[in-house]
């Protein structure tokens, strides 16, 4: 069954039609690669799922019931997490502090509740272990590699027990080894039954990790098929418009 269902979603900014009549369904434990050229409407679509924009038309259903998202915080309350391209981490804080940012664990009672460093280090360590990432909870994010940063950003989504994780270009601008690390993290999320949307320009990554690929062009969905039934050549054609529809 679909966990998230977008039906006939459109979004226009004044006269500009950014997303035009798009329907997509996400299933638990599935990775969907969302591809398209710059300005194809990927970001706008994702921002609607994340609660940054409200659709001009169409409905969003979560677990079968319709939801209306006014703000990003509401999306998060529904279990929809976004991992931003710039990662939105604080370089001056430790990995554990970033993982728990805004959701700090505390101990004590009433007004005398203080941050529970020990519990946060321990829990963050457990999550990094589950992700099989060599990330130390006490390290400052400033000193981390791109792959470790992604692990921190992804660990954030696991703290909140997200059902849907939207990843915006997670493999842009990092080294080959780190790309492998990040793809591994995505598989870990999938194996826990999380629906992952991977927005990427990198064809090999999408074909490596995604179960399905959705291609957008000029605000419309032009293809939505299992990865096994397509090829990088076809997807490239769909992105550029050389192939009209998949």
């Amino acid at each position, binding site marked *: 069954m679909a966990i998230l269902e977008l039906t006939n979603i459109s979004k226009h900014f004044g006269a500009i039609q950014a997303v035009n009549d798009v329907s997509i369904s996400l299933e638990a434990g599935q990775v969907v690669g969302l591809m398209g050229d710059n300005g194809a409407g990927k970001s706008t679509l994702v921002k609607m799922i994340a609660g940054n924009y409200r659709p001009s038309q169409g409905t969003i259903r979560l677990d079968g019931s319709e939801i209306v998202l006014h703000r*990003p*915080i509401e999306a*998060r309350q529904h279990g929809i997490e976004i991992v*931003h391209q*710039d*990662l*939105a*981490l*604080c*370089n*001056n*804080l430790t990995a554990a*502090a970033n993982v728990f*940012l*805004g*959701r*700090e664990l*505390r101990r004590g009672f009433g007004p005398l509740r*203080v*941050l529970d460093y020990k519990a946060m280090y321990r829990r963050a*360590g457990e999550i*990094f*272990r589950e992700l*099989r990432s*060599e*990330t*130390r*909870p*006490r*390290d*400052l994010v400033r*000193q981390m590699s791109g792959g470790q940063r992604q692990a921190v950003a992804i660990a954030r989504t696991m703290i909140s027990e997200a059902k849907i994780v939207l990843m915006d270009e997670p493999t842009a601008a990092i080294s080959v080894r780190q790309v492998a690390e990040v793809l591994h993290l995505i598989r870990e999320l999938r194996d826990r039954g999380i629906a992952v949307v991977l927005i990427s320009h990198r064809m090999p990554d999408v074909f490596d990790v995604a179960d399905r690929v959705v291609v957008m062009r000029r605000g419309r969905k032009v293809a939505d098929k299992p990865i096994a039934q397509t090829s990088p050549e076809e997807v490239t054609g769909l992105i550029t418009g050389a192939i009209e529809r998949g």
Partner: protein
Amino acid sequence: MATTLDQTIAQKQRTLGAAILANQTFWVLLAVVLACIFLSFATDSFATAKNLYNITRNTTFVAIIALGMTLVIITGGIDLSVGSVLCLCSMVLAVVMHSGYSIEVGIAASVATALLIGAFNGVLIAYVGFPPFVVTLGMLSIARSLAMVASNNTVVFQFGPDHDKLLALGGGAWLFGIANPVIYMIVLALLTGFVLRWTRLGRYIYAIGGNEQAATATGIPVRLIKVGVYMISALSAGVAGIIQTGWLGAVTTNIGAGMELQVIAAAVIGGANLAGGVGTAFGALVGAALIEVIRNSLGLLGINAFWQGAFIGGATILAVLFDRIRNFRQTE
């Protein structure tokens, strides 16, 4: 032997010793201690009860404001208005008490003035999006001008019926012969340190300085907290003003002139980074102490007072130089 994933995750990045050696505050503290030891031997007058009493007390006014300033600096801001706010709050206290009200009313009026100014700065910065430099530069001018208006630019040295209470508050030594202002400073420093290290608010203050957008994205009330830190900064100036008034026994419209620069220097020497995200309460005290020790020692060593600025400025640059050298090593 190959290290397992578990070992890697459990590993600490560096030992406690290494962390201390990499800490700017530690080196500044060491400089303060060495200077004190040197001065104890080099002069007869340094290690006397009277002089130590003076040094610790003189440190407090800059140190208390540096605590508030450190919070502002951690969020990536700056507050240039503290010297003038100190003056205005002292003057409000003085004028209210002079006209016959009790010390409680005077302090309440003074604190309210500080909070109001802090809120004004904070709202313009956090909600209207003004650069902190501009808003607080404006307030630097406004607050001092208001102090002149409030007092008609006269010196106030009569504080009405509670005159003696006020002087005892700032000039007394109620506990083991330690000057009262020092007690206030220690209490406020412990409070600030506690908030920064052990509360969510403290964590969020660091997060805002580290990456304001990230802080906003995680649902932290960034704007509210920014207004809060400017209010705390102004409040710290107000509190310092109240204590200083009690100590000096008189208020003129030029007290606190140029103090903002000393306060910022103290915070920066103590390890606060003007780019935001870094700083501690302890650092603010140590920075303020170094400035005071330099000033005191120049006098005792018979060096012309005109050199003071050169030494304090040199110390500021030297302290930050340590930080730069460490960063160069890390990026290599």
